[in-house]
């Protein structure tokens, strides 16, 4: 045990709530890594992110400024944390913060902090409003999508889209609208929270599948695990899912990784229509919250991600257990007020 190297990794998205961030699942994967030991530094935005209080998983947590404060504020804070903690690596897990971390990656590298993130080009190409161009360039079926900046544009898109259509936020949130009034209401709701643009997407009928995986940035698939979500909450989040063996989905994932040379973790949201054709609905440029199912099925994606970042050349996974399930549950922790006070007044716990 002692001959294993200890790596100090900072992880974000500790909000293991009903619409969970991936941080806690990523950390569980890291804690179970066979090739190294870890010390985990949590990075939180809010004082009630549950991960902050999970001391068996997270050694210490620091609050960091919101992405909307700009990269210079974020960098200052990370530098302070690094001075105290001497981080080896950061794994950011929120869509909304990825861009900032991608921008900072070279600066962080100079401090000796590794990341393993997609390139800005990869990140932008797969943005929801670029999906049609992405599909055309790499040869994937994708739904028609368009970015709009103005609620009035909902009237003019009628010629391209039939109802129902999907109204999506730039980072998060989506709703299915069956008429223009519903579309308007989603536009207002989502743009108030996540800003503009709003993405209007063709609604594809069928069965939804998901794949999580890891690309090495050279076009090779390090990991790929397809699942079907079995239970979806009213927030659209999986509460149960099962790993499946679908050759076509694995081929599609390989094709995605090799054609884009995808670097880092990702999640593909897929829809299989009645004719059996797969559509890519969304490409999330980070590890999903249900990644622990992949770990449980034999592919420890967080561990492999760290190895990629640290130059430890992970071997591509060749197999995983089919029919493994995850069933999520909620768990009430008992926390002393002092701890909450500590993180909310000093930003550290």
């Amino acid at each position, binding site marked *: 045990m002692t001959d294993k190297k200890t790596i100090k990794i900072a992880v974000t998205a500790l909000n293991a709530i009903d619409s969970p961030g991936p941080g806690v699942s990523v950390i569980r994967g890291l804690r179970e890594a066979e090739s190294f030991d870890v010390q985990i530094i949590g990075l939180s935005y809010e004082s009630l992110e549950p991960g902050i209080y999970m001391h068996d998983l997270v050694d210490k947590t620091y609050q960091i400024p919101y992405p909307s404060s700009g990269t210079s504020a974020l960098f200052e804070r990370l530098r302070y944390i690094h001075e105290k903690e001497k981080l080896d690596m950061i794994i950011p897990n929120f869509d909304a913060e990825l861009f900032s971390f991608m921008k900072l990656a070279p600066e962080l590298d100079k401090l000796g902090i590794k990341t393993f993130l997609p390139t800005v080009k990869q990140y932008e190409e797969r943005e929801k409003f670029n999906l049609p161009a992405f599909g055309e360039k790499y040869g994937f079926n994708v739904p028609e999508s368009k970015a709009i900046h103005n609620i009035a544009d909902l009237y003019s898109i009628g010629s391209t889209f039939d109802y129902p259509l999907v109204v999506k936020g730039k980072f998060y949130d989506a709703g299915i609208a069956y008429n223009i009034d519903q579309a308007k209401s989603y536009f207002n709701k989502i743009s108030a929270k996540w800003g503009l643009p709003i993405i209007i997407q063709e609604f594809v009928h069928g069965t939804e599948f998901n794949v999580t995986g890891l690309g090495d940035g050279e076009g090779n698939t390090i990991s790929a695990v397809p699942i079907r979500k079995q239970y979806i909450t009213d927030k659209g989040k999986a509460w149960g899912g099962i790993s499946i063996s679908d050759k076509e989905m694995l081929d599609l994932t390989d094709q995605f990784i090799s054609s884009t040379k995808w670097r880092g973790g990702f999640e593909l949201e897929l829809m299989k229509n009645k004719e059996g054709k797969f559509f890519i609905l969304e490409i999330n440029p980070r590890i999903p919250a249900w990644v622990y199912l992949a770990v449980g099925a034999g592919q420890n994606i967080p561990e492999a991600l760290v190895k990629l970042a640290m130059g430890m050349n992970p071997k591509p996974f060749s197999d995983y257990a089919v029919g493994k399930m995850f069933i999520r549950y909620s768990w009430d922790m008992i926390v002393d*007020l002092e701890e*909450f*006070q500590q993180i*909310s*007044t*000093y930003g550290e716990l």
Partner: protein
Amino acid sequence: MKIKKNVAISDSGFIFNPDTGESFSANPIGMEMLEMLRDGMDYEEIRKNILDKYKSEKDTVEKDYNDFITMLKQYNLIENDGQKDD
């Protein structure tokens, strides 16, 4: 004007109201005012203490004090005994 007795005020600027479960934070001058209110000082005394210690003016302190009290009331941190002593 009295701060509710069971409201917990810690040196770090963290305030907890056990009646409602709400927590708050205050800046250093806010903390000082809270402490003075808790010690039962009236407005005149509080103003004098603030003006002795800080560069400011009577009007400014009065306006800010009143605004601060409004917020304390809004947050239910003030004893609701109907008395009005400012």
